[in-house]
């Protein structure tokens, strides 16, 4: 243990960072619901337009370069939550993975080490917020020739929002809400976006004459019947294929993806178990196909996000987005589309899902090979690693079995780990592979991140639901809310 460990870097900053208190006693179920919902609602409320930036992006030279990644990280363009929870998720996921693979030396048995590791994660996420903010400011995303006051205010707003986002997730994580802060906020935001995209009534101006269309695809169909700037038939057609706002066809695909995830979610391998203490207590232990849940897709998208941000910084800050400069020749450059999106060209475009199926095949056939391969391999690789280190591995489960006094029917107790070892890695990798395929299929149809968002939202929702219902059962179901809402269905 000689030399300086990475987690020791967190030591000097240790005492300066705000730290949410751990609850003294177990929080009752109802309070958890309230804390969770309020944190998520505050997060949603924080998706508020930035002050000091013009509302329309017209004067900015660079448009949105990460439009297809926003769906996964609950990020809204040109709001306080420009980067969503990406920094929190990425630093948490990457650092835990590195610690698990023993790249970073952390002894999780020591309280002190765990605290340092946790602080390091927080420092890293705040650092990412800071870097992302300044990359975006320098790129001209918020407009050219900003004054110092502007830059300062943007920094305060974006970093402040980042700090509060990470504190909100911390409140949920520490036991005031249901386990995972980032995941539960993500799921709620994705659900909100789904409702906003189908049923949203807020009007958004779509052309220079000031005509407006509603955000929701379904509402748009009805409103299209009596819109002044469209014919009756044109209204119906545009309800299905407008590409500046959600349309009915994309929403149908998104719903399909959700339904398929629901179907795959209930795939499970049932291992027969029996109690070692009481005779005749037979049961089954389900090993889910989605043993890893949505984390494999999240990981792939964390990598995609990082690659795109680094490339974006190189292209725009070093190469000035000038196609003739060296950096842009190597990496490609950005082209502005529809006045909202910045779409990368050739080499970088291989890692970008196309904006529409047919246009994509014609203009960038390679992205139909490289992007799927990337998502698939990173997802499966992550699933394989994560199942071994996360505490859900065969050996850990075998220990759990022993503690609870259960054993696999017809196996000796010593062989449980070996038997589980045959099942769990293949469950994790197969599940991750299928989820990746589903994401890829949706994204190649031109969903611009909505497919990945839906997969993460539904699969993550299921993982959370499992924990919430377990929590509910432990409290004995004596919750005041259950009287109002009815007993939640148990899976």
């Amino acid at each position: 243990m000689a030399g300086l460990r990475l987690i020791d870097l967190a030591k000097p900053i240790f005492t300066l960072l705000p730290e949410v208190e751990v609850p003294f006693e177990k929080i009752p179920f109802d309070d958890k619901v309230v804390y969770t919902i309020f944190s998520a609602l505050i997060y949603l409320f924080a998706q508020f337009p930035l002050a000091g930036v013009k509302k329309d992006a017209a004067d900015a030279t660079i448009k949105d370069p990460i439009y297809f990644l926003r769906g996964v990280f609950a990020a809204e363009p040109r709001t306080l939550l420009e980067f969503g929870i990406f920094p929190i998720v990425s630093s948490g996921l990457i650092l835990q993975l590195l610690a698990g693979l023993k790249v970073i030396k952390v002894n999780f048995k020591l309280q002190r080490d765990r605290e340092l590791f946790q602080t390091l994660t927080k420092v890293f996420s705040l650092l990412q917020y800071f870097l992302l903010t300044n990359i975006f400011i320098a790129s001209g995303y918020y407009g050219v020739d900003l004054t110092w006051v502007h830059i300062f205010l943007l920094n305060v707003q974006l970093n402040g929002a980042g700090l509060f986002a990470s504190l909100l997730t911390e409140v949920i994580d520490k036991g005031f809400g249901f386990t995972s802060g980032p995941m539960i906020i993500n799921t709620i935001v994705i659900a909100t976006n789904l409702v906003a995209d189908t049923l949203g009534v807020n009007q958004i101006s779509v052309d220079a004459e000031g005509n407006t269309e509603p955000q929701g695809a379904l509402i748009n169909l009805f409103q299209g019947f009596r819109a002044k700037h469209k014919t009756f038939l044109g209204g119906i057609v545009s309800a299905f294929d407008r590409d500046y706002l959600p349309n009915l066809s994309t929403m149908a695909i998104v719903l399909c993806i959700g339904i398929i995830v629901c179907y795959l979610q209930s795939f499970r391998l049932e291992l027969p178990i029996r109690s070692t203490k009481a005779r005749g207590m037979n049961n089954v232990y389900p090993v889910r196909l989605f043993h890893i849940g949505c984390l494999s897709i999240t990981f792939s998208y964390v990598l995609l996000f990082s690659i795109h941000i680094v490339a974006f910084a190189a292209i725009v800050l070093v190469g000035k987005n000038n196609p003739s400069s060296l950096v842009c020749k190597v990496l490609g450059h950005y082209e502005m589309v529809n006045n909202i999106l910045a779409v990368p060209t050739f080499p970088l475009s291989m890692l970008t899902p196309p904006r529409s199926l047919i246009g994509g095949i014609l203009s960038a056939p390679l992205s139909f090979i490289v992007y799927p391969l990337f998502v698939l391999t990173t997802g499966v690789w992550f699933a394989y690693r994560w199942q071994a280190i996360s505490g859900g591995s065969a050996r850990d489960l075998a220990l759990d079995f022993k503690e609870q006094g259960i054993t696999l029917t017809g196996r000796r107790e010593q062989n449980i780990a070996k038997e589980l070892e045959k099942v769990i890695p293949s469950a994790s990798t197969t599940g991750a592979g299928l989820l990746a395929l589903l994401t890829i299929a949706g994204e190649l149809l031109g969903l611009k991140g909505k497919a990945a968002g839906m997969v993460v939202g539904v699969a993550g929702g299921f993982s959370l639901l499992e924990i919430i219902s377990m929590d509910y059962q432990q409290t004995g179901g004596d919750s005041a809310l259950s009287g109002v809402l009815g007993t939640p269905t148990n899976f």
Partner: protein
Amino acid sequence: MSSTPPGGQRTLQKRRQAQTAKDKQAKQTPTSARTAGHGGSSNSILKIYTDEANGLRVDPLVVLFLAVGFIFSVVALHVISKVTGKLF
């Protein structure tokens, strides 16, 4: 060696081996907070904050109120920029 009778030396040796293997396993640093038995991420859940580190302790309710306060200060910033008529 194959002629050694059962029990005796060999069993002892085996026992010792098993013991050292066990020790090794115990000494091995766990790969995550959950394997060490302290909560943390599980197979399908990403959990980042488990322990209370030394820092500026804040109450969760305070966090929620401060967050709302922060958002309203941004709203105020909007209002100021509108009243003064220009962007600072």
